[in-house]
């Protein structure tokens, strides 16, 4: 890439450099859902047409992109930024779970959809959130498993991801 840039006119490269710099400075995290954003609220949280009573829990922003690409989901997100793994020293407090609990307390949330990878860490995080959130009287559902087996959501094809969002299963004790 660098070699390629050197061949270009100087004005063009400077413009690109400025654009990159602007992008780097503008990128931040949504204050509500921790998705990537260029403002304190991301485009999903800002949109009046999105259902704010339904929150889909994902690990990172790539998962948001994958689900948005299906165009089958009209609720909001909550990006955890990681998964619980006590052996690696990552507990519930080290990812955005306390913020999720606060958000549910403040807003009228009816349903939580868990869309984490079906690894042991993903499952542990799902079971943990399910326990915490059902205590608060919120319905919890999970994507039908098997869709994300062997990989993260971003590798799942859109059709099966869309199907599993529609056919999500309610988690009960």
């Amino acid at each position: 890439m660098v070699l390629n840039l050197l061949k270009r006119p100087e004005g063009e490269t400077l413009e690109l450099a400025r654009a990159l710099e602007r992008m780097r400075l503008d990128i931040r995290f949504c204050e509500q859902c921790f998705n990537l954003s260029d403002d304190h609220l991301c485009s999903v949280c800002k949109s009046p047409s999105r259902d704010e009573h339904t929150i889909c829990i994902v690990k990172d922003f790539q998962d948001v992109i994958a689900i948005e690409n299906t165009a089958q989901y009209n609720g909001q997100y909550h990006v955890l930024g990681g998964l619980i793994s006590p052996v690696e020293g990552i507990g519930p407090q080290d990812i955005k779970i306390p913020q999720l609990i606060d958000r549910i307390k403040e807003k009228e949330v009816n349903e939580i959809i868990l869309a984490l990878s079906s690894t042991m860490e993903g499952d542990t995080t799902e079971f943990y959130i399910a326990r915490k959130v059902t205590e608060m009287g919120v319905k919890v559902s999970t994507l039908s498993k098997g869709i994300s087996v062997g990989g993260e959501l971003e590798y799942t094809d859109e059709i099966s991801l869309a199907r599993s969002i529609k056919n999500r299963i309610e988690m009960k004790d």
Partner: protein
Amino acid sequence: MKITKLNLNFFKNHDALRIDIDSDIVGIYGLNGKGKTNVLDAIHFLCVGKSYFSGTDIQCIQHEAEAAGIIGIFEAEGTWEVKLVLQRGKRKKIEKNGKALPRVLDHLGQFFSVVIAPGDIELIYGANEKRRSFIDQMLSQTDKTYLQHLVKYKKLIEQRNAVLKSDYIDQALIQALDDQITPAVKYLHSKRQELFQFLIPLIQRFYDQLSKGREEIGVDYISGLNDSSYDELTHQNRRKDLALQRSNSGVHKDEIDFVIDGQALKKYGSQGQIKSFLIALKLAEYQYYVETMKVKPLLLLDDIFEKIDTERALALTEVIKNANFGQIFISDTEQERIEKFCKATEHSYQLEAL
């Protein structure tokens, strides 16, 4: 199943060893230190992806060498070339007919071997861990679901222990782990119970053939899960878990004791009884694979004549002669003794000098 070709490269003491095989019984003889056991270990390695005799893979790579390799041609419902490569600082690789397997665990369940070796005495005198891993090895080869639950269970217990060691213990997190441990531990426990029910009469049958005694053989399987659910156990052990900072409920705490006439074999069994028991246990393992997987495993007999008396050796020869074994590899220091054994079994045999 049978092996028709075996190549070892820089595996333990063997720089380059080639054996072509066209017999039911292969007698390997040579002085101590020539690496007879290592040949048997290489065969076991090809079957299950790990050494029977060495704790780590690195110990199997020859000093100075960067890598070790084993290749075996198996006849087992078709011809299979199994290739195993051990490299320092890298993950071991297994190829089946030129195709690399994604994980070594995927290799389990097609090729079977049963080893009878002097070190098996550890199964009697060693810690419960030895006996647990012996039966886990058996079940993991015949039941993929068991293997999956076992791998997951071990990781979950590690996670649970890490929570118990942390400064702040989040009970909801313990619960989230227990939600996943519950189905796994239930499956593992029930399969272990079934296995013992299956094995005990088989051990008894082989024991009777090997010894002149009339002793009754038993296995005591002591598990918290015999009478309580995992949920009940974790409630009972809650304080203990917190005090010791590790999990005290589950199949990793199971105890397995071998019993003869109602008494602990390791305390009250004579040397002769223990030797017969161990061989009977391994022959029962063999029979378990025969009946559950419809295969005839390879039987690997390491230096058994050195350790067992003539009477028991003759009894074993009779068992082998009459039973329908697959291929047998046997190692010994003396050519004459091994040849006598091979002849007595009335099967085709070949001798390999190391």
